[in-house]
């Protein structure tokens, strides 16, 4: 994945699916052989990975852009978001 910036437009990869856990109510991000439990802020970011820019996501969530980019990069390493 190319380095991320405020203009990157992350989208959730085809292999990743979001759902709510039946037992705990937490948000799960499922992909082949794995599942991540997302905390509330991570879940909010992932829900906005619909093609809008990382800068817009940061504005929408009133969160520091650097945090958003770090988290998106970690997801990118796992192939979970594409830009």
């Amino acid at each position, binding site marked *: 994945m190319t380095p991320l910036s405020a203009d990157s437009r992350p989208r959730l990869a*085809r292999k990743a699916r979001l759902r709510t856990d*039946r037992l705990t109510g937490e948000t799960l991000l*499922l*992909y*082949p052989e794995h599942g991540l439990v997302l905390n509330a802020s991570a879940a909010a970011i992932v829900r906005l990975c619909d093609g809008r820019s990382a800068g817009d996501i940061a504005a929408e969530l009133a969160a520091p852009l650097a945090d958003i980019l770090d988290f998106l990069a970690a997801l990118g390493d796992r*192939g979970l978001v594409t830009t």
Partner: protein
Amino acid sequence: MSRPYVLVAELTYRCPLRCAYCSNPTEVPDRPALATADWQRVLGEAGELGVVQVHFTGGEPLLRDDLEALVARAAELELYSNLITSGMPLTRERLAGLAAVGLCALQLSFQAARPGSSAAIAGVDAFAHKRQVAAWTRELELPLTVNVVLHRQNLDEVGAIIALAEELGAERLELANTQYLGWAHRNRAALMPDRAQLDAARAVVAAARARLRGRMELLFVLPDYHADRPRTCMNGWGERYVVVTPDGRAMPCHAAHILPLAFPDLRACSLASAWNDSDAFQRYRGTDYLREPCRSCDQREVDHGGCRCQAFLLTGDATAADPVCDLSPHHDLVVAARAAAADTAPPLTLRRLRLAR
């Protein structure tokens, strides 16, 4: 109380391939297969119990013509469904149908990087068809995992296997060294690699992993008999996985059928009662049952003493330390097997062909 996250649904033991490393039982119980409605009920019970991923596997799950109905049921339940397949027999039309009813991902097995070496291991020339299946998978935009079981006969091809997976557009490549259970145990001497071969393969994998980061996930499951300490088998007995056999038995691990335990029959009880209350699931849950040297070992909570099935297969006692561990009093069995494999390479015994029930 623990909950299962993954249901391994072994839909049938039938398979058109005859892989010499197959971990299916060498003798299959003569009990009728679970019906479609039973499998659909089991999927529902799994969802209620906390399962979020289901692997449809076998044998060859495509040999069941109700696979579509089961995938659809999984989708209804929001279970992430993986089809674990040899790709035989599959048409593009059927794969498109499976994607349409909600299949989430496909895991395709290859036996080696080339047609000839593949056929020697699988007993069938399936290579070209598998390539075709991979291409359809990409066309249909399904995530593709390529799975190759590694052993003495294909470890030297590992670089070519990685190149094949890249060329096929796989998002994940699983290189799993053989576990010596089922047919693989019978073929142990022919399948066991030597140390130099393994070290070379490991170096190739490490270099490729760095290069492929973010594009293809590369998993290399360490070979058991060459490690000094055992793996945490299945993340612990009855901790995260539940396996259901073609005839409807619930087990904590796909190899557990060799153990002298009464595995709960899902025709007669629910998955929840199998998981929570059955003797078979409670027997080796946690670490309380472990004896020395595990009982006083600081690795106890990490590896749970290794694989129960391997401990039983090699020592006759399922509560023993996995003999792979160099602290096990039976570790000499593993050392001897390694040495025997190093100086002989007997021919492979292919798995018995099994197309009928």
